[in-house]
């Protein structure tokens, strides 16, 4: 077996078929990055996993999953102004959390260099929106390199690191979901381990000021804008943008990132294809390169995923320069929505150039949708099943981010509103104002508690809000792949007590009756109350058991006492329970982990543990 962590620190050059996220880590190592920070979130967690797979004594990178994205960014910033090349990465919406510090970065002299890697999510594959982070980057005057493949991810990171170090400014590497997760063969260069230099080089007299207050802001802003303008020329060095000349003086197409790949798929074999300019970055705009392209075509289509910042910049440039070229871009509202897959790009190109691109074939409607589900044995399922019994129809439930968000789905339908990580206690407090008729119950996961949940809780105590928080504690950051969180070292209950919460209930979620009771009691309290609904993540537990070579408990079975009441399948709804053609319920033994949390849901006690083959009682 070849471990990722071993080849990442191989000194010689090599060719490997790898994911974008893994190619990125090799680039960090070759660039001599010293400090890497993050908070887990799709599509980026594999970056952390790849770094952590390097044997710790040989790992050239200091790495931490910080408590949230803002802290991660600040740790990387602190390292950079002390002279270390640093990098922080997180998912698209993570930038919102980090924004308060992020927008200051370009004002600072980052003497070690710093690369911010964003995992944007066009198509909202695993996020609560598909925001285009180019807007935030522009607001902060930070350039954005946009690779389209794992090979470019590797090459563009090396470049971003170099530009950042030379210019002492932040540079963004903007990945998207299908760049992070794409796999292809990447040719890596050599890595020569450098001797570490731990000298703390922070020097506000020489490189500062680092305090941007009132009038101090202007020289810093001036410097940021000058750096950006100087960098624009450097960024346009030959070889980074791609220009494909198809000898078409009429039609040109300007694009970026993975839309370029979709274009190439669509236009392959087409007669009279347009000339194509694929930009390695949209911000800052490469005016010389773009002007040259505009001037050599009479029509140019800007094909841009998500929002239309590039299109607007190009149109403004053409207007300023009096360029005689018809520039088109987004037209229909759908052009702002979703990933620019080959199919979507074909639709757009057909609309613009029906003579060269055929229409797409209609797609059959898909049967049997399969929404994500809580895993077999998940403690959250027991929790939602029990909590639902404590709620009346009019009560309001506020979801938060984590595996427990899935409680909003049928058949539980607990969780009716969601904004972002840690919003639930602020939103819940607002919902409880002037409201004596409908009880408000909020949810929060344990990793999110530390990430962004604590201020909302303190606020509830401070202002005497009266809703009930159910803290879904599974002792890990489950949804993103079981990263450790602060709760392993700092007890949540102690924090709640220290905040001054008087009414704290704590129940293992497998004790469903007790949990229902605790929630009822907590909701009766005329003050902010908390129920800690606790059960370890069973997916993590299952994997650890298997890793140790131990067998799982035997699956449950349905006895002849079954009266086909169907509470197990329709109300508890563990995926293990399936429906036979005749409507009876059966156990899918491949799925059941033998946890038995379902047994208490059956009114006639028909779900049994499987007896051991020798007949000596039940397995456990």
């Amino acid at each position: 077996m070849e471990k990722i962590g071993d080849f990442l620190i191989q000194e010689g050059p090599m060719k490997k078929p790898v994911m974008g996220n893994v190619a990125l880590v090799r680039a960090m190592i070759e660039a001599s990055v010293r400090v890497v920070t993050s908070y887990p979130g799709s599509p980026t967690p594999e970056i952390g996993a790849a770094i952590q797979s390097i044997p710790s004594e040989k790992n050239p990178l200091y790495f931490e999953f910080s408590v949230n994205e803002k802290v991660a960014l600040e740790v990387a910033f602190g390292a950079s102004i002390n002279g270390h090349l640093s990098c922080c990465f997180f998912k698209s919406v993570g930038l919102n959390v980090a924004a308060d510090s992020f927008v200051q970065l370009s004002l600072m002299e980052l003497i070690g260099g710093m690369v911010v890697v964003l995992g944007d999510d066009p198509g909202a594959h695993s996020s609560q929106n598909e925001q285009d982070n180019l807007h935030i980057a522009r607001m902060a005057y930070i350039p954005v390199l946009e690779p389209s493949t794992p090979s470019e991810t590797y090459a563009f990171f090396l470049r971003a690191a170099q530009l950042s170090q030379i210019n002492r400014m932040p540079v963004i590497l903007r990945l998207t979901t299908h760049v992070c997760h794409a796999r292809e063969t990447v040719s890596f260069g050599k890595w020569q381990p450098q001797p570490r230099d731990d000298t703390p080089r922070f020097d506000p007299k020489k490189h500062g000021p680092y305090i941007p207050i009132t009038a101090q802001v202007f020289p810093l802003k001036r410097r940021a804008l000058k750096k950006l303008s100087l960098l624009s020329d450097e960024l346009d060095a030959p070889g980074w943008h791609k220009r494909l000349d198809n000898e078409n003086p009429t039609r040109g197409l300007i694009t970026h990132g993975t839309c370029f790949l979709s274009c190439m798929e669509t236009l392959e074999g087409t007669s009279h294809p347009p000339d194509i300019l694929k930009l390695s970055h949209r911000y800052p705009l490469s005016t010389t390169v773009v002007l040259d392209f505009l001037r050599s075509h009479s029509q140019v289509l800007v094909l841009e995923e998500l929002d239309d910042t590039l299109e607007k910049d190009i149109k403004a440039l053409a207007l300023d320069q009096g360029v005689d070229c018809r520039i088109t871009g987004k037209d229909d509202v759908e052009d702002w929505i979703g990933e620019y897959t080959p199919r979507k790009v074909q639709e757009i190109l057909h609309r613009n150039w029906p003579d060269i691109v055929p229409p797409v074939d209609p797609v059959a409607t898909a049967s049997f949708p399969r929404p994500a589900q809580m895993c077999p044995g998940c403690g959250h399922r027991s929790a939602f099943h029990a909590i639902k019994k404590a709620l009346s129809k009019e009560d309001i439930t506020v979801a938060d981010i984590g595996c427990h968000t899935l409680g909003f789905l049928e058949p539980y339908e607990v969780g009716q509103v969601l904004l972002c990580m840690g919003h639930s206690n602020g939103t819940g407090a607002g919902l409880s104002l002037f409201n004596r008729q409908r009880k408000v119950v909020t949810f929060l996961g344990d990793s999110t508690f530390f990430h962004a949940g604590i201020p909302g809780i303190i606020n509830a105590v401070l202002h005497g809000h009266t809703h009930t928080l159910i803290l879904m504690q599974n002792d890990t950051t489950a949804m993103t792949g079981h990263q450790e969180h602060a709760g392993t070292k700092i007890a949540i209950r102690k924090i709640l007590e220290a905040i001054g919460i008087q009414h704290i209930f704590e129940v293992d979620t497998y004790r469903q009756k007790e949990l229902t009771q605790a929630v009822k009691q907590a909701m009766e309290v005329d003050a902010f109350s908390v129920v800690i609904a606790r059960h370890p993540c069973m997916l993590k537990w299952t994997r650890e058991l298997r890793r140790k070579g131990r067998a799982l408990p035997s699956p449950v079975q349905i006895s002849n006492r079954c009266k086909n009441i169907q509470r197990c399948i329709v109300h508890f709804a563990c995926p293990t329970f399936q429906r036979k053609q005749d409507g009876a319920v059966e156990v899918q033994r491949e799925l059941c982990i033998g946890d038995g949390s379902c047994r208490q849901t059956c009114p006639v006690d028909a779900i049994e543990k499987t007896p051991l083959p020798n007949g000596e009682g039940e397995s456990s």
Partner: protein
Amino acid sequence: MKSFQVFLCGVGGQGIGMLSEILLQSVFFSGQEARGVDTHGLAQRGGTVVSSLKVGRSFSPLISEGEADLVLALERYEAFRALELYAKPGSTLLFYDTSWQPLGVRLGTNAPLEASQITSLAEQKSVKIVRVLEPQLEDPRMQNTVVLGHVFRLCLIPGVQPTHVLHAMEMLMAPSLFARNRILFEKILSANPPAGGAP
């Protein structure tokens, strides 16, 4: 020339990630260009996982609807949906016939899928179907190796040989896991004399 496009699908937890990684590495060992991508979002939580693999010259790793030359599915409902959306006329659908019912079926809002629905849709779309099952399998997590075995028993991926697959498995699996999966893979390969080329 267009690449040979393999669309893979299953349910989170079935091992689609490992299967696609083995295939991609195998294509790499065969000396051909390989490009792929997993789309899994919240996949670990029992949702659909899809992965694509392109063998030969390509740009985007994504496969468009109706463009797959070969569909590999680890589960019956996933096989049916991929047949509806991705299999192109004349392609092959190979699926492991286990059933992990989606939510609608379990709640009783959709009727369960019947085997005849897959056969008749495949006939209508001129897609060849290969249904595989290994009822005596000691561990359901080895179902992806069963699928892999049948893919190479039937020589369904041009230019890739079982030796490339074994090399990839050895590289990607822990030694004890590789040993068990190798036995299974070779058993399935030799269950029938391999056919004389890609269909």
